[in-house]
């Protein structure tokens, strides 16, 4: 019997003579018996990777920033808005447009920024937050863009229970027409409409700064 066959037998059963390397075969045996070894990442991870790569979403990444210039020009032409053209002319989209977020009276110490970046897939909205506490069990936060006509569109949900890493949210509508950004606290099972509990807010045209 070849040494590989002996090793395979030992690896399979933990018995018999392993010609060499018995110790590392024992490590392999221990590892294949553990649940962690067999865990499968959620499907949402693959979708998230593809989504981020499709969009080239990191506004701070040098490569993305360089690539984003023609996209921004195209977006500006397509949108035909004075605001966007003006911002581009001023170079304000070099890192995306920043909107300052402030806590409402419900979370007065909370602060943050939203970085808006047009992509082929929609508007990538990166949100950095400080001092917004994690949502309690049974609740979650929801980001919104809101028009002056009183129409809101959700841009994603989060809970912050595991930290406040920058959030990546998305708007499938033109944020220039939905210039207000809200963060609401929502109760699970309460339906898709925005709650009355708005904890942070900001506005694109009044608070827009460039990075």
């Amino acid at each position: 019997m070849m040494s590989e066959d002996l090793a395979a037998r030992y690896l399979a059963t933990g018995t018999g003579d392993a010609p060499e390397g018995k110790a590392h075969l024992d490590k392999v045996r221990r590892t294949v018996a553990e649940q962690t070894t067999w865990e499968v990442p959620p499907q949402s991870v693959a979708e998230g990777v593809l989504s981020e790569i499709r969009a080239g979403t990191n506004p701070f990444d040098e490569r993305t920033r360089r690539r984003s210039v023609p996209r921004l020009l195209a977006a500006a032409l397509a949108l035909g808005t004075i605001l966007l053209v003006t911002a581009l002319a001023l170079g304000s989209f070099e890192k995306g447009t920043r909107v300052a977020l402030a806590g409402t009276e419900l979370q007065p110490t909370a602060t943050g920024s939203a970085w808006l970046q047009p992509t082929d897939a929609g508007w990538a909205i990166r949100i950095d937050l400080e001092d917004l506490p994690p949502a309690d069990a049974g609740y979650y936060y929801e980001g919104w863009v809101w028009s002056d006509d009183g129409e809101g569109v959700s841009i994603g949900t989060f809970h912050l229970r595991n930290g406040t890493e920058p959030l990546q949210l998305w708007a499938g509508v033109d944020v220039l027409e939905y210039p207000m950004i809200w963060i609401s606290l929502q109760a699970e099972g309460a339906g898709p409409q925005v709650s009355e509990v708005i904890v942070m807010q900001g506005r694109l045209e009044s608070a827009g700064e460039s990075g």
Partner: protein
Amino acid sequence: MLWRFRDGDEEAVKAVYNRFSGAVFALSLTILRDRGRAADATQMTFVKAWRSASSYDPDREFGPWIYSIARRTAIDIYRKEKRRVPTDSVAATTEGASMVRVWEVFQVRAAVDVLSDDERQVVQMSHFEGLTHSEIADRLDIPVGTVKSRSHRAHRHLVELLGHLQEEPE
């Protein structure tokens, strides 16, 4: 393949993800001990790998390269959370995962994912579920002899892939 991956070619991204996502997730889970955080770390690892693909040396193996990115990413998440929530149970339980152990988990999972579906199934049922060959045969409704030959082929394959667990890369 790596050039196509770097350029965001969707098929190349899927191929790299399918080959290494299990190993990256297992590594992340070993360090972070939480599926949600491990999922975040896995996603961040592949996006970081894509962003830094231009710095990848094609003369080096891809596995150790993405392992290094994954390990750094998971440790960064762990350290940030430890700073934020020092009494969190995660912080208390993650200390035990030695880097040698993390590397073993990564290598073993990466090797298991190279096996055919049939081979992987027998290895999983045998080692993780603790089933005998007869029980596996009953479960899969195939002859015991088929289970035995499949098991030997699978373990022989693993020996070839893991016969010498490599040293952890720097």
